[in-house]
């Protein structure tokens, strides 16, 4: 059984459509006969890419004029749906804005939204979503019973993006209704942080540090090693909470999901919260002084030792090779 229509909440950085959007479009094509995108911006900038990944139409709001996507796109979707244009399923990425849009829409439609899903199947005409729990050791499968549209938030890297060979999506205007008080939050300025090297969730190699580094200043080792390997530096929640590194570095349940070719965990014990964000990596290397650390149970190579001794030697050896 397949669904007749699936919407995907599309996001882009400038005119570059986000990978999570393309991943969801691939899954949406598997689940539904018709796939359409909903975009909080100028539809012409993304229509070609969305079309090439299977969306026949993009419902676009145009410039949001400083309003936050959560309330603006959520309200626009709700208005279209109550106006009679309801899909069977709407997929949202687990991103800063995706969660907000899904949340606002769920209240407006009085329907639940399922978070953190890594797979979606259709059983009869019901949507069933899979959510990893307890650090990804168990998978809970939940059937939505509130009726269409079913709302599902998808974890990044759950599906492989794939082109469909389709032409540009038709752009259709989606109007944002009067938001009243809820629309009074405005973006007044944007700050872009200078990024060097690959992005954390796209890097082929990720080097992460945890509490075992001992102090904030030692995170430099992580950055140096990441740079040498042309990878991205990451972090466990413990050292983000401690203020050593910004939230954008966090790998885990709260934070980014990464699936690099190589993940190197330095001084990370492997709390379930962290492992759920990195256990999909192809190769895992861990250095930790506690032989009992849970991280070793999922590591391909584990070095039981002091990061302050092992890592400087590793850096030296790699520097000597370049």
């Amino acid at each position, binding site marked *: 059984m397949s669904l007749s229509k699936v919407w995907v909440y599309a996001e882009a950085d400038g005119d570059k459509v986000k990978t999570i959007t393309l991943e969801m479009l691939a899954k949406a094509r598997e689940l539904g006969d018709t796939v359409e995108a909903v975009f909080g911006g100028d539809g012409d900038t993304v229509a070609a890419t969305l079309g090439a990944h299977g969306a026949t139409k993009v419902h676009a709001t145009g410039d949001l004029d400083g309003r936050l996507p*959560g*309330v603006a796109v*959520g309200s626009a979707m709700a208005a279209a749906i109550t106006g009679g244009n309801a899909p069977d399923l709407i997929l949202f990425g687990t991103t*800063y804005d995706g*969660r*907000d849009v899904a*949340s*606002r829409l*769920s*209240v407006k439609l009085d*329907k*639940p*939204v399922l*978070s*953190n899903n890594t797979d979606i199947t259709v059983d009869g005409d019901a949507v069933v979503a899979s959510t990893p*729990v*307890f650090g990804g050791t*168990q*998978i809970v499968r*939940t059937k*939505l*019973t*509130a009726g269409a549209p079913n709302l599902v*938030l998808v974890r990044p890297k759950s599906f492989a993006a794939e082109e469909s060979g389709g032409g540009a999506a038709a752009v259709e205007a989606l109007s944002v209704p009067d938001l009243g*008080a*809820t*629309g*009074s*939050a*405005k*973006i*007044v300025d*944007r*700050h*872009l942080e200078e990024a060097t090297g690959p992005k954390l969730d796209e890097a*082929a*190699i990720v080097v992460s540090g945890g509490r075992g580094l001992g102090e904030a200043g030692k995170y430099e080792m992580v950055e140096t090693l990441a740079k040498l390997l042309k990878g991205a530096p990451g972090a466990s929640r413990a050292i983000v*909470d*401690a*203020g050593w590194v910004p*939230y954008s570095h966090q790998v885990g349940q*709260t934070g980014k999901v990464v699936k690099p*070719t*190589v993940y*190197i965990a330095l001084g990370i014990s492997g*709390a*379930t919260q962290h492992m759920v964000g990195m*256990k999909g990596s192809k190769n895992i*290397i861990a250095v930790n002084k506690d032989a009992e650390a849970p991280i*070793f149970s999922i*590591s*391909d*190579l*584990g*070095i*039981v*030792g002091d990061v302050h*001794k*092992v890592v400087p030697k*590793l850096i030296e050896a790699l520097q000597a090779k370049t």
Partner: protein
Amino acid sequence: MNIAVCVKQIPDPAEPGALNPDHTLKRDGKLILDESDSYGVEMALQLVDKAGGGEVTLISMAPNSETSGLRTALAMGAAKAVLVSDDALKGAGALDTAKVLAAAIKRTEFDLVLAATESSDGYTGTVPEQIAEVLDLPSVTFAKHIEVADGTVKVQRQTEAGYDEVEAPLPAVVSVTAGVVEPRYPSFKGIMAAKSKPVDAVTVADLGLDASLVGWAGAGQEIVAVDKAEEREAGEIVEDDGEGFQKIVAYLENLKVI
């Protein structure tokens, strides 16, 4: 300025979690304050302090009238709490939780509602924005810095590429990331004082909500299976003898990434 802070009391994350036979999360043991919520509590205390007056009220929903986590936040300096505890809430999803918390928030005087971006156990990450919609308020999620001045909340909102400066008139709902402020440790005096701070214990009926719509029955979802995930095998684990780094070099060479 008065601030309502949503706080969750969760099973200790250091203990292995478990599910009940009906697939709900086992939450019948001792519950503690979710560490993620300590940031919202601290932020609220600092904002009230800066405003020169007002109160921080905790808003929580928990089984068995559990207050041990609330006492931790009261010991940090919150003035009082509203606790919703009702058997009818067993199995409540994120949307139900948002409806209940929003109704509880309405029992208090507030200019601002703070919450963590997500709880450490359920981690749906949708509740704060859902609360805002139920209360018909503007909201800003993923705050990494908050200031309040002249009836406006100014937030640095985390984005993929950096951060946005967002402004909203009060009242508003803001969710904070860890690290927004450094949470204080409760002092001995605070811990003693917390024992006698008021906790307004209410049921779903007290909030004027229909119990059949906010628990398992009204959740609009049904767990059909819980399966063991594919396990990852451990590989080679070696004790560092001073040459452990060579193992890593060889492993990386073998993968041809260096």
